[in-house]
């Protein structure tokens, strides 16, 4: 078991064995800047990648007004994923593009579903202070926000 599991990563992902820091990431390299382990293990300061400029609501993530129609949501989503999906992002930008894509996709998932959107809209209006309610429903952000003081999602509420 040991011998063959050591062969597999070697043949597919030589980078991991070739000095991770020296090689630039390529399309097949899969490490990311903000893996959950890194989030947990590093201090809060280093985990906030774009605290100031981060969009705060799902509408802002997609760059649309709150009254946007379903078609506008869809086309805004498509426009964004064509830039940020790792398959199309620039080679040296793969790692952050996955996170970017997940953000956009989460926003899209909520806003493109009429029920989830109505629910989300209610929460925005009703609860301007606590992010707790819907931070759980966000699948893309690791819920380590207990250790990280701020992130793109909680920002809107502080």
């Amino acid at each position: 078991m040991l011998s063959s599991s050591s062969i597999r990563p070697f043949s597919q992902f030589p980078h991991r064995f070739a000095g991770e820091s020296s090689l630039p990431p390529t399309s097949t390299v899969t490490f990311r800047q903000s893996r959950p382990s890194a989030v947990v293990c590093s201090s809060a300061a280093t985990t906030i990648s774009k605290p100031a400029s981060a969009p705060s609501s799902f509408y802002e993530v997609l760059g649309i007004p709150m009254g946007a129609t379903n078609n506008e949501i869809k086309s805004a989503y498509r426009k964004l994923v064509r830039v940020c999906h790792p398959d199309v992002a620039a080679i040296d930008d793969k790692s952050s593009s996955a996170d970017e894509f997940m953000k956009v996709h989460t926003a899209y998932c909520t806003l493109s579903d009429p029920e989830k959107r109505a629910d989300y809209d209610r929460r925005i209006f009703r609860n301007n202070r606590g992010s707790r309610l819907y931070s759980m429903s966000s699948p893309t952000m690791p819920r380590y926000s207990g250790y990280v003081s701020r992130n793109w999602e909680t920002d809107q509420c502080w």
Partner: protein
Amino acid sequence: MAAEPAYFVASDSETSGEEKSSFPIKDVAIGIDLGTSQCSVAFWNGSQLELIRNTRNQKLLRSFVTFKNETPSGGVSNQLAHEYEMLTGATIFNMKRLVGRLDTDPVVHASKNLPFLVQSLNIGVRPFIAALVNNMWRSTTPEEVLAIFLVELRALAEVHLKRPVTNVVLTIPVSFSRFQLSRIERACAMAGLHVLRLMPEPTAVALLYAQQQQQISQESTGGGNEKNALIFNMGAGYCDVAVTATAGGVSQIKALAGATIGGEDILQNMMHHLVPDMDNLFSSHGIEEIRTFGLLRVATQDAIHKLSFQESVQIDVDLGNGTKICKILDRNEFELVNLKVFEKCESLVWRCLHDAKVELEDLDDVILVGGCSYIPKIRSIVTSICKKDIYPGMNPMEAAVRGAALEGAVASGINDPSGSLDLLTIQATPLSIGIRADGISFIPVVHQNTAIPTRREVFFTTVHDNQTEALIIVYEGDEKVAEMNHLLGYFKITGIPPAPKGVPEITVCMDIDASNVLRVFAGIVMPGAQQPAGPFMEVRMPTVDDGHGWCAEALEKNYGTSKDLVTLQRKIQQ
């Protein structure tokens, strides 16, 4: 471990990123549709997609490898004088039905009446497979056979493209587990190929469809509304269904459904129908039986093909052992014999539509591809469910490989001035991935049909007071009982601080990146603590190897419930 044969494994330098960025055009990945019965290779030639033909001018190559004397030869270069030649025992085929399966798998058992040798001990290890060479059964493995075949494909592509070929996009069945995918990657590595993407077959077709739709909408209005398409793909080994939402060159996979069911099952059913005691007749696997079986298989296959174009067919075959089959077979009988196969296809289509949450009236196109799409019953099943005619613009035998080659060009970062590569597929997970918890239950962390890349997490806690260790056993599938799913791997979390049961918080996070690599993270957090109680674990899955049928049993036997976990309810309700 058993020594692998002398196919060389790709070295570091051949797949390095530096090479890729400095020769972007040269390194365009080719697309391979590695079918159970047929195979094809395509590439982006700078302006359009092109299928590669072999020296006999064939685009569709039979997937098999014949073992003769010292050098095995595959269906790329080997010319078959007649179909019977494939059925002498010296030829291994249907590799895709066998790869990465345990000897407890019903699909492996159903393969026992193939002319080559398939033996199983029913203990959850790799089945024994052998080819008849000089009157001796010589053992091999599905990975090795695939690798030999892939070496031939690679050589064919290299001769045609006049450059080395390393990067490939391969199509795979929807129902493949990650363990099976790792076996495919292993076969590719043995053949010196680097897998850029493994694409579920209908998603490759979806990408090709996205390109076609984009060209149409560019020509007409310019905008282009979202179009929902159902793609049904059925070949010799597998049936796959996908629902995709397409607009502006972006194909979003909304749902996937698949099963190990295909032309091979239809063929086996018909053979059993014609010779009910076939399994007994064939159990000794002697030379004479192999010959008899070959005659029956060819005659049956021929009849099935004819039934796609005519109402009835006359079967006349002398099996040589005193058994003569003389029978007129019509479509009704054929459809009755294969009732279960067709019912399964029907249920896959319904499930996929349901999972995609697409109403029938919102379906714009229905696409049928794969060898079985010629069967009238299959066409009528899909069209009557979807209440739509079949989309005319797809070549059923070439759509998947063309889509794979498109993805190869897109994922290699190629741009086309005309915008015909301005495409993107957003893939989805065909199966849920989760861990065993709450007793023997399967608790999904990443659900089926989640868009990739993705990252999800679920919280668990201990079941015993002062439990210091927990086993994370990762499964893939959609069965409620963990054991019924595909085991991907397991690891242990240690150093849980002593506490009453239900207090420590065990975080399990799963991360799938755009190349579909799965990483499982796990760690402990005590309530009120600002930092985790020790370093998190990061495990790339799958970690299991052949023989994992034993692993699950051994874990159960050695640990019982002592290292179990339950889902943390308060986290869910919060």
